[in-house]
């Protein structure tokens, strides 16, 4: 065999990376729930394979379809979080805001939600009361109604306290067609606020690290903020809330779906000092940490300034910023220019971000 050049090897790797994934595991591991590569493989090779249809196929956070003259958005999400209560929120407002946001990022106005509860035998009614109250409050704040629901109780040990599922329906009143496949070179990438607050808050709230901080989850409905964005930047290509897998995962999905390069500028990405500090200690990258009230948007390059200005008029968007741009090459990759002046690849996570030992 002739000596392979580095370039040939790298190009071959990129070709392999674009192949359809296959499931090689025999059992579900926690990696399948992390939002990274294992999750994508599971969705692509198992769920999509079985359910395939044009509404599901784009694998957006919601399906958009027409009923009569109306365009509707429909989504569902299940919430499992430990601890159930954390600074800045609880599983209740998370479950409402998450589903509201999955609708809002399509450009829809969220209308109605369902709520399903899986409760563990022995779970305190007082805690459930607290969760339900914060769901009611979050629904009111987001302008939606919870109109149907379900409850199941399982034996002690068969669930972790309380799991919540919500589904939601919204209506698209704007003529927008937002899609991860719509980004093109010259577009700007925007984030609506500091990243990683929610994920780091949860890690610290588990109390295993012995770090105290005033950090709070960013959980919030994004409907109003997205409305401001779409008004100011009517050519917006794509919006997604940066939940599991963080900004890095969204950018990877975007790069693959649109066949473009996403080039981020590390220094312009807003990250709170507490989040940075905790991330440094744990050896994880804030770009992979979940948010529950932040979105990433791709807008036309010439509308970026207006978009950020509009977002900053709202308290939730006060720290909105352009964090990068779309380039044509190398397609399917996310790159970041580091504050230090170098450059690195931001790949999809393999599993949960695990702390490094040294």
């Amino acid at each position, binding site marked *: 065999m002739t000596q392979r050049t580095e*370039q040939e090897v790298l190009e071959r790797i990129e070709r392999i990376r674009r192949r359809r994934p296959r499931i090689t595991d025999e059992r579900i*591991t926690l990696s399948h729930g992390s939002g990274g590569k294992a999750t994508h493989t599971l969705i692509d090779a198992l769920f999509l394979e079985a359910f395939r249809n044009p509404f599901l196929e784009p694998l957006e956070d919601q399906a958009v379809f027409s009923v009569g003259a109306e365009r509707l958005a429909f989504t569902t999400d299940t919430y499992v979080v430990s601890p159930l209560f954390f600074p800045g929120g609880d599983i209740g407002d998370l479950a409402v805001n998450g589903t509201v946001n999955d609708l809002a990022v399509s450009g829809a106005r969220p209308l109605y939600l369902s709520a399903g509860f899986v409760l563990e035998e022995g779970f305190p009614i007082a805690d459930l009361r607290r969760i339900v109250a914060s769901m009611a409050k979050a629904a009111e704040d987001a302008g939606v109604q919870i109109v149907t629901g379900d409850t199941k109780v399982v034996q002690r040990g068969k669930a972790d306290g309380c799991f919540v599922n919500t589904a939601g329906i919204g209506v698209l009143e704007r003529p927008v067609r937002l899609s991860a496949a719509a980004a093109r070179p010259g577009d700007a990438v925007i984030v609506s606020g500091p990243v990683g607050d929610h994920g780091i808050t949860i890690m610290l709230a588990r109390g295993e690290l012995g770090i105290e901080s005033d950090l709070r989850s960013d959980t919030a409905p994004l409907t109003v903020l997205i409305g401001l964005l779409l008004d100011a930047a009517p050519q917006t290509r794509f919006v997604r809330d940066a939940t599991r897998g963080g900004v890095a995962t969204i950018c990877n999905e975007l790069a693959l779906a649109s066949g473009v390069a996403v080039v981020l500028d590390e220094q312009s990405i807003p990250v709170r000092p507490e989040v940075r*500090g905790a991330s440094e200690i744990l050896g994880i990258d804030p770009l992979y940490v979940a948010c529950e009230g932040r979105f990433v948007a791709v807008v036309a390059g010439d509308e970026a300034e207006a978009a950020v200005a509009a977002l900053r008029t709202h308290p939730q968007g006060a720290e909105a910023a352009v964090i990068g741009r779309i380039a044509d090459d190398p397609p399917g*990759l996310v790159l970041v220019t580091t504050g230090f002046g170098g*450059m690195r690849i931001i790949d999809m996570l393999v599993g949960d971000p695990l702390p490094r*030992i040294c």
Partner: protein
Amino acid sequence: MAPEGMRFVDEYRDREKAQALAANIATLVEPGRRYGLMEICGGHTHTIYKHGIEDYLPEEVQLVHGPGCPVCVIPMGRVDDAIWIAEQEGVIMTSFGDLLRVPGARGSFLDAKARGADIQMVYSPLDSLRIARNHPDRRVVFMAIGFETTTPSTAMTVLRAAAEGLENFSVFCNHVTIIPALEAILASPDLHIDGFIGPGHVSTVIGCEPYRFIAEKHGRPFVVAGFEPLDILQAIQMLLLQLREGRSEVENQYTRVVPWDGNQKALQAIDEVMEPRPTFEWRGLGWIPDSAMRIREKYARFDAERIFDVPATRVADPPACQCGEVLRGTIKPWECKVFGTACTPETPIGTCMVSSEGACAAYYNFGRFTRLRVRQAGSA
């Protein structure tokens, strides 16, 4: 990154200082000469890729990623043994996070957890001790891995368990020592390394003196370095200056943390609890004499290897794997036959791909673009 600065971190990530250092480095390099510099520690490899340090280096300087990634060098047989222990009645296995995904021949800790083993992630061996205290009816085992950086904390934890009389806590000891591994690398005939970037954290414990043989016997300059990007650039500058002046000495770039004589208390704690093993297997490097630690007889009741009838599994490294050559700097990660095709971070075959600090994983995750960029130079 953030608009607000972060003390004791941002000072070491200053772009202008980096440019000044890079300019100086360029003047120290003889055009056309190849300089192979090995950073021994996985933490350094991580920093190099995370911050894109190679972008600051002239073509002549090539960084070779060494064996100092503790997760990477643990042999598959030891992972299998640990999983075997975790599957015994009443056991809670505790482990650092980044070991959870490391595969043995029978899968990883994560796979064993999915099969029903109770495996919990901890941030410190003291967390394992707490779990043992809270679960007196269970047998809690700490999966101890790492170089001299983490060995003292394991030793201190055993001492504390002894002082508290905790009898349901034990350690599965896989601690390794850096010097024998370096000797093994230096002894290989196909070595292409002109100087070493020495491990900062290990050296806080063992000091700088143990590296003297590398400078004196093997004629290779050795600079102990910190983990911020400017630390590494400065260490490279110090190495190139030594090479330029024909010197080979041990120097300490990381004086803000590393005392020349190391940390005697930590060394005493290790010596109290542990002794060298006659030999130990390293993934990619094979069996190396005196290269690992085991629990002394005196503390046998805390030694999982003695408490459990551990099968002592031996699994040969997969034949396609060229990790040994990567670790010796003979080939670059991308030159391995299975790199990026059969062997990826999702399905690692060899040691260098398993942890994000491993040479191949770091190159795969962060470094690919450094090369691809050549193609993109015009449009960037």
